[in-house]
């Protein structure tokens, strides 16, 4: 199923994963130093899924993401500056500081945003696909959701509707083994969420979510299926989040040993090593890549911390639906 990236594609994907990793680490640091408030959900370890999905699709395909949405948003092409600005709550953020880290959206890049109500975004994505189909659009919608979300009833309802109506939805399950502290082994009644496709007559497959070449190929195959058959597809990617669920998570629900085992399947390492062995990359180049990405990131963050322009309350009110409620 996997495809072997050529050098250019490999470099692009590797850069994206590195950017995502460094971005998350930066966010973690900014939280620890209280430069940022609220909460955040890092996707360190899941880069092969985050970077492997949207680049494999048409740029005009839509995504609906989750609370763990930074990587998805980067992979769709959003500017690091507009993202970080949103995390800082600034008026040049993706949602002018009103949404925050759980609600990144970027219409220009066909990212419709995310629901912070776990699973609810799947219905929105299904509805978007309904309208795309009605309007004879050639595009599809990716509905990201986690193993935890897979147990929400609304996911069932959405998959059933997508199936009976033949909607262009790619149900993209990021199975990272945990929903907050609860292990899928104890919460999900089936060993592979892909099996749930059977319940809806939806074609499905389960792939290694830490191998970006596998993810990329599976997504392209799924998209081809969706277009050819006029039906939805369920793709499960098995991965692991190295980070805690959100800030302050002590990870008491799993062992350091389990984490160590998974760390050997670091998606960045996998692609890097493969590219090195293919002669597409030297250790040198990789170091340089990291340094470059880090520098860009640091610059942007520093710059944003300095010039914090925030919306006023009056400006915020202006984004309510016309006439909606009084003050």
């Amino acid at each position, binding site marked *: 199923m996997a495809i072997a990236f050529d050098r250019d594609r490999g470099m692009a994907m590797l850069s994206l994963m590195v950017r995502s990793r460094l971005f998350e680490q930066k966010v973690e640091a900014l939280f620890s130093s209280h430069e940022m408030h609220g909460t955040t959900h890092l996707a360190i370890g899941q880069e092969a899924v985050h970077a492997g999905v949207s680049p494999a699709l048409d740029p005009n395909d839509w995504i*609906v993401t989750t609370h763990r949405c930074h990587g998805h948003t980067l992979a769709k092409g959003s500017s690091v500056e507009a993202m970080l600005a949103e995390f800082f709550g600034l008026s040049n953020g993706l*949602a*002018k*500081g*009103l*949404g925050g880290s759980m*609600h990144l*959206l970027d*219409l220009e890049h066909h990212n*419709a*945003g995310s*629901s912070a*109500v776990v699973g*609810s975004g*799947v*219905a*929105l*994505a*299904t*509805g*978007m*696909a*309904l*309208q*795309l189909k*009605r*309007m004879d659009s050639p595009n599809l919608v990716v509905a990201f959701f986690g193993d935890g979300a897979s147990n929400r*009833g*609304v996911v*069932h*309802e*959405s998959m*059933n*509707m997508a199936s*009976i109506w033949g909607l262009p939805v790619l149900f993209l399950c990021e199975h990272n083994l945990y929903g907050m502290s609860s292990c899928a082994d104890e919460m999900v009644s089936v060993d592979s969420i892909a099996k749930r496709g059977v319940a809806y007559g939806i074609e499905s497959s389960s792939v290694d979510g830490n191998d970006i070449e596998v993810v990329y190929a599976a997504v392209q195959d799924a998209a081809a299926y969706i277009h050819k058959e006029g039906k939805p597809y369920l793709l499960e990617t098995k991965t692991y989040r190295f980070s805690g669920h959100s800030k302050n998570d002590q990870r008491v629900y799993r062992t350091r040993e389990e984490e160590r085992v998974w760390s050997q399947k670091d998606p960045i390492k996998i692609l890097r090593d493969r590219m090195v062995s293919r002669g597409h990359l030297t250790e040198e180049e990789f170091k340089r890549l990291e340094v470059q990405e880090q520098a860009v990131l640091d610059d942007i963050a520093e710059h944003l911390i300095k010039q914090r322009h925030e*919306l006023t309350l009056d400006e*915020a009110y*202006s*984004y*309510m*639906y*016309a*006439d*909606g*409620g*009084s003050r």
Partner: protein
Amino acid sequence: MRKLSYREAIREAMVEEMARDEQVVVIGEDVGCYGGCFKVTPGLIERFGTRQVIETPVSEEGLVGVAVGAAMMGMRPIVEIMYGDFSTLAADPIINHAAKMSFMTAGQVSVPMVYRTPMGSGTGAAAQHTQSLEVLFTNVPGLKVIYAATPADAKGLLKSAVRDPGPVIFLEHKLYGTEDIVPEGEYTIPIGQADIKRQGTDVTIVTYGKTVFTAFEAAQILEDDEVSVELVDLRTLRPLDTATILASVRKTGRVVVVHEAPGFGGFAGEVIAQIVEDPATFAALRAPVARVCGKELPTPFNKTLEMQLPPSPHAIVDAVLALFPSAV
């Protein structure tokens, strides 16, 4: 002049809007050949086809979520939910998503959706099919909430709701057969304007939905007692036409608020708060404010009991007369 039933008026509004704009789509359970649970949608699928009439499985949360997503992409869905009680199932897509989308995205995404559902008792359908749950929505910034009583109001307000850029909750009563005059041709009624259904000088009755008719009956009975009732039909609960309420109460000095939902925690509280918060209106009050609302019970199946739940004309009359202690 022609008469239409409440049902026909709502249907006509949908037909006109669907013909005007192909993005207007009716979505719901059994809204196709069956014509909807309360027969409001017959003929729509025959005329507009499956591109504008979408029948869904029994999946209230999912189908409303789907409507929200479709609306984000330019559809203007009119969702029909069979019974207002099932709004409990659709509360997440409406309250957490539709209502907040424009704000959370700083105006980049909007959800031009209408959510139609009937409220209220009187059908013998017992506790889970007869509630009046408007307060699920009236405390949510970002939602508009309409509850029209007459066919003419329902038609004009539904057309405005369809054209509104945001999510609108459009509540209906179950007296779908009630006939009344409906103007010919195209017209809309602005959201957020109350209507004085009856002019009067001694007491204001504020109400909405089905109890507009009950209050009207009470007003007629009160004529015999030489009490002149001004009847304010709110028509829209959110945003509320506070100016019309206050002007009426300042004129009459007395007010009774009526609705079918149980009184405790019901919408009447908001109306009363608006009245007594306003210094001039407060000063003009010549009696305490009164409420006549539904009883504090789930709806019993037994008909005799069910009929005792909503406000009766006589309970309203009594409440009004109690505001005139000297006269009694």
